[in-house]
């Protein structure tokens, strides 16, 4: 029986007087693959930022591996949206991955052999080891995103959080990213904020629909139904369905 890795209870959050999250309660088990979906402004990214302590917790409790979440930040790997990244930046793939180190101050200049070996191992996990010495600007959007996943894996986290990992990637690149994440979920917990609802339901074990409140869906039984009967419906309709029923 898998243990709970994340427990969230009575979570409330507001920006100034605007309430964004209300009475959020959920648990996530080890090695689960959870999708967080919902409309824009519904609170998906806010929840992610709370787990990462980018937003300060106002009300409620978050525990990770049974401990206060602030003591467990080293166990979380994060893949941001990276909309501001300069894609022509002169930097190698290996250097980007080594930025995932929890504490950068290990060596004044240059990198240790064991750091490079660890970075190569992280790249292997996402199928990008042959690109180690390439410049990041030579990669496609999907390849670049897998490098960012490797960066998040560099410190061997127990939980991987991803914010819209396929937002600027074509369909085949998206499928590859989700396959990689599915493979990773055999070893670590994967939580993805995504808009690719019809794609992510094929890979995730559970979906949290968030629109100020949270609706928890077990996708194991819903998947076949979605794929067989609802293949024709658009993502907005699917989103509305998930938001309107409580499973």
């Amino acid at each position, binding site marked *: 029986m898998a243990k709970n890795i994340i427990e969230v209870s009575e979570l409330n959050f507001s920006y100034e007087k605007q309430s964004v999250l209300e009475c959020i309660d959920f648990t996530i088990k080890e090695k689960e693959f959870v999708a967080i979906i919902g409309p824009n402004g519904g609170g998906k990214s806010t929840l992610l930022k709370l787990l990462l302590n980018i937003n300060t917790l106002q009300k409620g409790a978050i525990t990770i591996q049974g401990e206060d979440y602030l003591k467990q930040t080293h166990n979380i790997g994060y893949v941001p949206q990276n909309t501001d*990244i300069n894609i*022509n930046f*002169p930097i190698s793939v290996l*250097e980007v991955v080594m930025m995932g180190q929890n504490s*950068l101050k290990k060596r004044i*200049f240059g990198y240790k052999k064991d750091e490079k070996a660890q970075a190569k191992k992280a790249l292997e996990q996402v199928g990008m080891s042959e690109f180690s010495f390439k*410049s990041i600007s030579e990669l496609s959007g999907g390849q670049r995103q897998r490098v960012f996943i490797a960066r998040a894996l560099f410190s061997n986290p127990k939980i991987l959080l991803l914010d819209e990992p396929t937002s600027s990637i074509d369909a085949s690149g998206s499928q590859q990213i989700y396959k990689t994440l599915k493979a990773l979920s055999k070893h670590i917990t994967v939580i993805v904020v995504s808009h690719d609802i019809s794609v992510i339901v094929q890979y995730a074990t559970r979906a949290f629909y968030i629109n100020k409140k949270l609706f928890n869906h077990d996708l194991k039984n819903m998947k076949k139904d979605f794929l067989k009967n609802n293949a024709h419906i658009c993502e907005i309709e699917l989103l509305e369905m998930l938001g309107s029923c409580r499973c």
Partner: protein
Amino acid sequence: MLETLSYSFIQNAIIAAVLVSIITGIIGSLVVVNKMVFLSGGIAHSAYGGIGLAIFFGLPMLLCTSLFCVFVTIIIALASYKRREHLDILIGLTWALGMSLGIILVDLTPGYQSDLMSYLFGSLLAVTTNDILYMSILLASIIGIVFTFYREILSVSYDTEYATLRGVKTRLFYTIILVLSSLTIVVSIKVVGLILVIALLTIPIYVAGFFSKSLFSMMVSAALLSMFFSTIGLFLSYNFDLSSGPSIIIVSSVFALLAFLIKNLKEYIQ
């Protein structure tokens, strides 16, 4: 040629060109990858306020201009770090305010200021031993800071949000990059003048960007290219009695254009 090199003012000019090339190669790379070119332009023009203050109060030029620029830079850094949308307005304001302050202070200073043009367009052949000492100290400081904190600076420059999450003091390093840029601008004024200083911070870096696979290699290549462009520019300036700053910029621009054409021709052929 050898006789030319025996003149002490030519020797000073060459040493200054080499020192400033290394400084601008390192800092220019940071300015370009952090998309701070316009910001550097603002700091460069605001430097005229510092020049005006030095002339009006009879203070040491380099020291006074450096302190003034660092002051302006810290204000910009504090005001713009969290609210980048205000950055353009701040740059425009400091750009115009610095120039206006400088012009008014020069107007109020009794007597004729003969060397004002050299601050606007540079005067490499008038570099003094004190200027070289100041450039050497700045270069040593830049090398010390940039290479001690190379990984932090790389991390902040590439992905600020992620660097913050990894515990890097991003605000501190953002300010350090800006302060080093402002000091670089002040020493480069002697070489190309405050109006053309942006070219020294961008053209060699643009050319180096065609073949650099890391920030470090970009810094080294840009410094070497800048030395090459400055030496040719200086040679042309001395032999044809031209202004040194614009000569260096025109040489740099010709090579940048060539690099651009070669790269595009290669892509076209492939």
